[in-house]
């Protein structure tokens, strides 16, 4: 692209760009960002990447260890479980459930939560107070306990788990959005805009939102990590994904009976879960760090 800038002027990066470049200079976070992208890619294209279907049983190859062990078989890279299902394929399909659904749930929760939060943040008086109390109540109950209760009411199952996690996440977004909006509304440029005659909606849209987007993204990473942990924990407790589903937590609990004989069935799903959580958390950390150092 031709440079139309005829003045030899320093280009100042915008605030988003600044955060982005700060973020990039944080190497672990940058690596983890790629890892997250990798997980997203795997989740999106699981059927194309996975060598087998998650449910395909290979009766002739049960309990094969990972291929780097002597008894392993290269056609089953990470080994197989007791029904002869390929572990790698199951982990890949599991990424779709545990990781992919977490991203989606957190996204939906964000949309609902931000809308409600904006309503709460912009309103004042009794309505706002009732609202706040209600959400503070829900927030003071631990998320997994709340999810367990919701599952207890709805009955176990993956779809109910998703509902439960969604219901758990929404209040968190409402809370953080409300606080961010209220903090922003106190600032002087908002008052200036108001004096210019902007109505509530315009203020929210033009002044407040652009300034809280980053806080929301940060909250989003937290939400994703909560969602992963909760979905997996419920699966592990046998309250979430059905037996046999390649959901990571459920895979772990299903393999406990084989802890001696086939320890890779315990370690590998655990490692995958760990990596996904680590990458999401680190990206969150990096983002927070970048935001902080930008404001400094």
């Amino acid at each position, binding site marked *: 692209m031709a440079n139309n800038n005829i003045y030899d002027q320093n280009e100042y990066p915008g605030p988003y760009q600044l955060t982005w470049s700060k973020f990039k200079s944080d190497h*672990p976070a940058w690596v983890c960002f790629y890892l997250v992208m990798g997980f997203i890619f795997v989740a999106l294209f699981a059927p194309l990447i996975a060598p087998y279907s998650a449910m395909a049983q290979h009766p002739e190859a049960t309990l094969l260890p990972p291929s780097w062990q002597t008894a392993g078989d290269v056609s089953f890279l990470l080994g197989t479980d007791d029904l002869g299902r390929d572990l790698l394929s199951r982990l890949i399909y599991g990424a779709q459930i545990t990781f992919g659904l977490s991203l989606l749930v957190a996204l939906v929760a964000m949309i609902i939560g931000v809308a409600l939060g904006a309503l709460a943040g912009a309103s004042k008086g009794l309505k706002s107070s009732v609202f706040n*109390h209600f959400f503070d109540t829900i927030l003071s*109950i631990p998320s997994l306990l709340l999810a*367990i209760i919701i599952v207890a009411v709805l009955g176990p199952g993956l779809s109910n788990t998703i509902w439960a996690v969604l219901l758990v996440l929404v209040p968190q977004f409402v809370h953080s959005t409300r606080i961010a909006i209220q903090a922003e509304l106190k600032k002087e440029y908002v008052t200036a805009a108001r004096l210019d005659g902007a109505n509530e909606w315009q203020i929210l849209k033009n002044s407040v939102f652009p300034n809280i987007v980053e806080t929301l993204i940060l909250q989003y990473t937290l939400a994703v990590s909560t969602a992963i942990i909760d979905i997996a924990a419920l699966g592990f407790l046998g309250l979430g994904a059905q037996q046999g589903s390649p959901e990571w937590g459920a895979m772990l609990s299903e393999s406990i009976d084989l802890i001696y004989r086939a320890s890779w069935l315990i370690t590998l799903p655990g490692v995958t*879960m760990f990596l996904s959580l680590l990458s999401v958390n680190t990206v969150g950390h990096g983002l927070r760090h970048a935001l902080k150092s930008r404001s400094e």
Partner: protein
Amino acid sequence: MYIYLLRRLNLLVTTLFVISVFSFSLGHLFPGDPVVNFSGQQSLTFEEYDVLEKKLALDKPYMVQYFAYLERMIEGDFGFSFSSERHISDEFLRVFPATIELSVYAILVALCIGLPLGLLAGLKKNKVVDKVIFSLSTIANSVPIFWIGLLLILLFSLNLGWLPISGRLNLLYEIPAHTGFVFIDIALSDIDNKPAVYQNAFLHLILPTITLATLPTTLLIGMMRSSVISVMNSQFIKAARTKGLSYYQLIRRHVVKNAILPILPQFGLLFNTLMTSAMITEFIFSWPGVGYWLIEAIYQRDYPVIQTALLIVSAFMVFLNVLLDIIHSLLNPIVRKDIHG
């Protein structure tokens, strides 16, 4: 101050109200008959059913039902468990101390490890020590707790055979439960050979405590670190430094106290994490606490127990949060003003 207290109490009462309404509605939301769900008695004759329905006020409008329910809760009458057919209040009193005991040890461990490490990391900001501590805590923070539990079992119990994996005490020791806290009960019992029993109880504690303490420790490290950093940057530290205090004195007299105060309100978050982790830890190590009890109740579709456990545990959490707020405001007068403003 009184106004502040009143506000907090107001919050407490409203929150408890919301929770109790939710818990009450569960009795109607759960599958099955409300009379059975509220009373926990499954095999009823028609007459018994009618009597119970009257007694629980379930033939009246919802408002009256709710107040009758509230009255029962305050009296501690939670009905019967479906599966054990015992009073839920008795069962709860049996499992609750176990959870408290485990949580207290885990919190102690987390404090003993988390605060010093956080302090160290904060003081050596951006040096190697800080980076090592920070990375370790990020890693520990990302390991799913149920996986840690399994790995610990695999390593210390199955491969090395050092530590037991379930329960609070070898079942051959018959310790009558007076308080529900193992160590106190052992002291109160008249069993021979107490040292061996204490040792056994202690060995049973190690793995669950480590598992449970992991997450709170990482949280504490993070909180303490950022708090120490902000204290170190404040004016009064500079002033103290100019007064010629040695580094050690400075830390001991000024930094530690001032760094711990601001993280007190965040303890609510800490307890939340602890409660969540406690449920999973108890499940993995068959620790007979509230979490284990609740999860078994869900497997067994024991609705009265689920309903009660929800009510008590969340009320307890809310209560704890408010209590922390109040303690914090007593110790730190600045907060009170903030909240008025």
